[in-house]
Structures are given as C-alpha cells and as structure tokens.
C-alpha cells in the first residue's frame, strides 16, 4: 500500500499523486475536521461519504448548486415549445375543425404544455447534474471501497502542475496554502483522521 513515505522515496512512481486521504469513522468527526481543513485554505480538497451528510456542504464551504436555474429555464422552454408547436399545427399549418373547437383551442393544449414542461425540466436537471458532477467519471477510480460502505474521508488534493509563466494560474494558486505531502499528512492526523495515506489517480477501471 502506498504511504506518504513510499511516495517520497519513489518520486517517479508511474501514477500521478492525487493527494492525501484521511479517514474518519463518524460524520460528526468528519464535519469538525472539514471545517478546519477549509479554514486552512488548501486549494483542492474534498470529502467522501457513503451517504450525503447534513452540514458537510457548509463545513466544506460549497456554494448552493445552480441546478435549479437550469431546471427553471428548461421548464419554461418546454412549456413554450409545447404551446407554440400545438398552436402552429392547429391554427397555422393545417387548421381543422375538431369537435367544434376553435383553431386556437388553448385549454385543450394545456395538458401537453404541462407534461412537456415537466419533461424538459426533469431531463435538463439530470443532464446538468451529470455535467456538474463530471459523470460518467472515466478519469479517476474510487480511492477506497470503504467509502461507499461505512468510511468517511477528507482528501487534500495535490495540485496539477502549472507553468511558471502562467501568471493567472500562479496568482490563483498563491491565494491558497501550498500543498506539501508530509505537511498535509500531519495536518490530517492533527484534525483527527484515524488513517492517513497518499492516494494516486488510477484510471476508471
């Protein structure tokens, strides 16, 4: 198993270092520790849980997901599209008198408008969720099988290498605490992780 010591002794191991993972046994411990990691201003960190834990988003400093805006716009689009299509086929393209109703029989168009609103809103919500989550995730395997079972973890991530002359990236990185393997390991031990180890980015399978 790779340890921080191993990683340091083999700096040119094939897999890129993803960061340091610290394991916890309970969500309450995880939330406390996450608050401290957030306050320490690491650039890349994330937590892993087998189920969504209340209070962890705030502890991690995550902003509210923007998915509802997408849902709303998609829903409006669906409703409008449904109405316009029905109107065009019934009153413009080939108007037929059906059941004695006027060509623009808008009350009869309402059920389909409602259904297409819901359909577009729902499908766009799921698509947005997949896009924001980067699903399907083909780049990185899960770090530990226990994370989907009963273990909770914080990852302090190793940053991607940046060019010296990429000013924007250098400036952005300077706002955060610099990642250093042993220091991050010690930090996680200090905030109460039961087990800490270096993890590497392995492919999807």
């Amino acid at each position, binding site marked *: 198993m790779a340890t921080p010591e191993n990683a340091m002794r083999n700096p040119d191991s094939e897999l890129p270092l993803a960061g340091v993972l610290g394991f916890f*046994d*309970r969500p309450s411990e995880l939330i406390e520790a996450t608050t401290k990691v957030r306050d320490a201003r690491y650039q890349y960190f*994330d*937590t*892993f*849980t*087998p*189920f*969504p*834990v209340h209070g*962890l988003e705030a502890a991690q400093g*995550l902003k*509210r*997901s923007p*998915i*509802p805006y997408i*849902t709303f716009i998609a829903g409006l689009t669906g409703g409008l599209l449904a109405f316009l*299509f*029905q109107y065009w*086929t*019934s009153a413009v*393209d*080939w108007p037929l008198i*059906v*059941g004695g*109703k006027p060509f623009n*029989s808008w009350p*009869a168009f309402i*059920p*389909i408008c409602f*259904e*297409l609103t*819901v*359909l577009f*809103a*729902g*499908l766009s*919500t*799921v698509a*947005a*969720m*997949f896009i*924001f*989550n*980067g*699903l*399907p*995730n083909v780049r*990185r*395997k*899960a*770090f530990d*099988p*226990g*994370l*989907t*079972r*009963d273990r909770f973890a914080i990852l302090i991530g190793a940053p991607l290498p940046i060019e010296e002359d990429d000013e924007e990236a250098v400036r952005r990185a300077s706002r955060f605490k610099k990642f250093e393997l042993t220091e991050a390991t010690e930090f996680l031990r200090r905030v109460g992780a039961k087990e800490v180890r270096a993890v590497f980015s392995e492919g*999807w*399978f």
Partner: protein
Amino acid sequence: MTTMATQTDVAQYVPEALVTGRKILADVNTDIAAPIERVPSTQWWICFGTALGAFLMGAFLAGRMFLNGLGVLGLNQPAGWGCFIVNFVFWVGIGHAGTLISAILFLFRQKWRTGINRAAEAMTIFAVMTALLFPVIHTGRPWYAAFWLLPYPNQRHLWVNFRSPLLWDVFAVGTYFTISLVFWFVGLIPDLASVRDRAKNPVRKLVYTILSLGWRGSNKNWSHYEMAYMILAGLSAPLVLSVHTIVSFDFAVSVLPGWHTTIFPPYFVAGAIFSGFAMVVTLMVITRECFGLKNYVTLNHLEKMNMIIMTTGMMVGYAYACEFFIAWYSGNPYEAFVFRNRVFGPIWWAQWIMMSCNVLIPQIFWFKKCRRSIPIMFVISLFVNIGMWFERFVITIGGLHRDFLPSSWRYYIPTGFDWGITLASFGWFFIWFLLFLRFLPVIAMAEVKSVMADPFHDPQPTPGPDKEIAAHGHA
C-alpha cells in the same frame, strides 16, 4: 381540571426505529447487496419461469389477434373498449404509488420511505411499461401506432389530434415513464457504486462500474446530487397527479353519462394510490421474506402503508357515494339510470366485487392487530387490487354497454384472448420485477444509512458465512 404534562411525560417520546436489529453501516451493504451476489434461488427460478410462461402464452395470443383482428376479443358496439383499456388504467394506476413514495413522501420528509422507495419506484417503471403495451396492442394494428400517436412531419401532411385525451395520454404517460426512469436511475447510482466496490469478479465489476458511472462518493457530487434529487421529487409530485388526471380524461372528456363527470380526476388519482400501495405491500411482503430484509422493511413500514391504503380506500368510497348522490340529485335520467344499472343490471356482480373489495374489506385496517399482521395484510392487498381492477371494469363497461339508446344495448363478455392477454401483462410485469430483484439492490442503501439512528456501535456477531464480514466490517 386539566393535568399539566410533566417534563418526564414530554421527554418520553422516542422516534421509532426505521432499521431494527442493531445494524451498523457495513451491515446495510452486506444485507442488501449479498442476495444479488449469489446465484438466484430455486424460488426465483420458479417465479421467473411462471412469469415468462404467462407472458409467452399472451404473446402467442396477441400474435393470433394481430393476424385475425380484434374480433377475437369480446369487443362489440357499443362496448368498443374492454379489458385492454381496463388493464391500461389499472397498470398506470399501480405505478402511481411508487412515485408517491419516492417523491411526495420525500417532500413530506417521511424518513420511513427509504426502506421501500427503490422497490416501489422499480414497480412504477415496470407497471408503466406494462400499461404502455395496451394502447399499442388495442389498436389491433400496432405497426401503425407510431403514425397515429407521434407528431412528426409526414407525407400525409397530417398532424396528430392534440385536442384528444388519447394523445394527451401519450405525452403524459411518456413523460411519466421517462421521469420515473431517470429519477430511479439517479437514486441507484450511489448504490450501484457500493455493489461495484464489493465486486470480485472482473466482469461483474466492469458492468457495475459502467452502470454506476464511476461514482466516488465525493461531497461535491453529493451536493449536486441532492439538489437534483429534490428537484426531481418536486417535479414528480405534480406529474403523478397530472398523469392519472389525464388518463381519467380519456373518460371524463367524453359525453357518456357516468363518464362525463368532474369527479374523475381526483377519484382516479386516489384510486391509483390505493391500488398502487396494495401492490407495493404485496411485493414487499414477499421480497422481505425471501431476501431476509425484515430489519429494513419493518412492520412499522408495512403498518404505515396499510394506513395509507385505508385512507385512500375511504377517499375512493367517498367518491362512490358522491357519484351516487349526484346521479340522483342532478335529476338527469340518463345519469341516474347508469348508476341503477351498475347496481342492478347485468354487471351487478362486478359492482359488488368492487364495493366489497374497495370499501368494506380495507376497513379491517382500523384494528392495529390487523394492520400489523402479515397474512391479513397480504390477503387484503390482493383483494384491493382485484377490487380496483373491477372498478375500472365497472366504469368502462358500465358506461359503455347501456348508454342513451336502448336498441344499442349489448352485454360485454371478455373472451379467452382478453383474459389470456391480461394474465400475460402480469407475467410481463413480474419478469421485469424479478430481474430487478436479481440484479439491482432492492433497498436504497445510501438513503437507509442516512436515516439510521445509531449505526456506529460495535458490530453484532452473525451466524454463518457472514461472520467474517461482520467481524472485519467489510468483505
């Protein structure tokens, strides 16, 4: 003189356990994922074989029907709609309970839904798949179904009739199927990741890796996931109400007495929830027995479902009373006749099955002992579904076979083709449900973990081959 509640009285309330048996988090994975890692039992094969046999028999009959025409059914004029439409409404109705459990109970923050929502949503999807068979085959020429139902530009320059409830059904049930499928799949992703992480066999691991879309449990992902889940629940709630409303419009938008009534939308929706919950009870009683899931689908869960069955049954009973009252109070002789005919005419037997199964029999759930008794609730859930099938039969045939002109009156007798294809629809439904039980986790593991009261104590030793798993906390 009132007595004041003391501090100790107030402090006595303990919320009931949603998961019994002193389980820890790892147990949830073991208990729920282990059955799908074993070769299926003989029971499963027998059930699957029966379902497959029933379906193939019906497929054969349906093939004969397509070759020979709809005349092999009991349809006639005026009863142009018969068992197929009854089955359509029946199966769509059954699907509604799944969405209610997933979406509406979620919005009401009822944590007990986590034990049953996965299976209930699966039931919804398969019920809607079964229901969708019927509008297609009842045309007699299903190869034209796409022409007639889907609005696409064609060389006939014809569009579908958007003013018809039959077309509203296409969009409503189609949307319902799509959103239910998507909601169910999104909920499955973390659980499929759990199954993937337990997989030893590389083929199995590959399949579940692909299905779980590489889910890693990252909280950034959970945050978007929770938002999407909540939005889907919020969308599904009005959707489920609208879908059976639109199905009821198939009848209510017509001019037939007994059909043309504004009570149909709420009446149909309440009836759908009623029959759907009965089907969930039937399925969960069997599933929890065969898969050893009594600690997750407890008697408390089943009791709550029975209470909902009784409530919606009484709503349906109230709707019956309203219909009879309005038939008399309206002074409309045709309306009054329809209801007299239902009770005393040639289909009186169907009306009485419906009344006793839907109104009388569920009253037994007033008694707590009955609500918590497995044999009683299983039998009652079967009766409720029989009653609800006959309710749709009474509505359809009762409205059609004796309408305005007595010279057009005829009796409707379903033929062997009708009954055979009806039985085949149950076969089709159970094929899919049994496959679901075999390959996918039956209970929402991640959601159950989030509602367990105390999952962090030392693991309990369990007998048998799982002992090692319990001791180490993982496989």
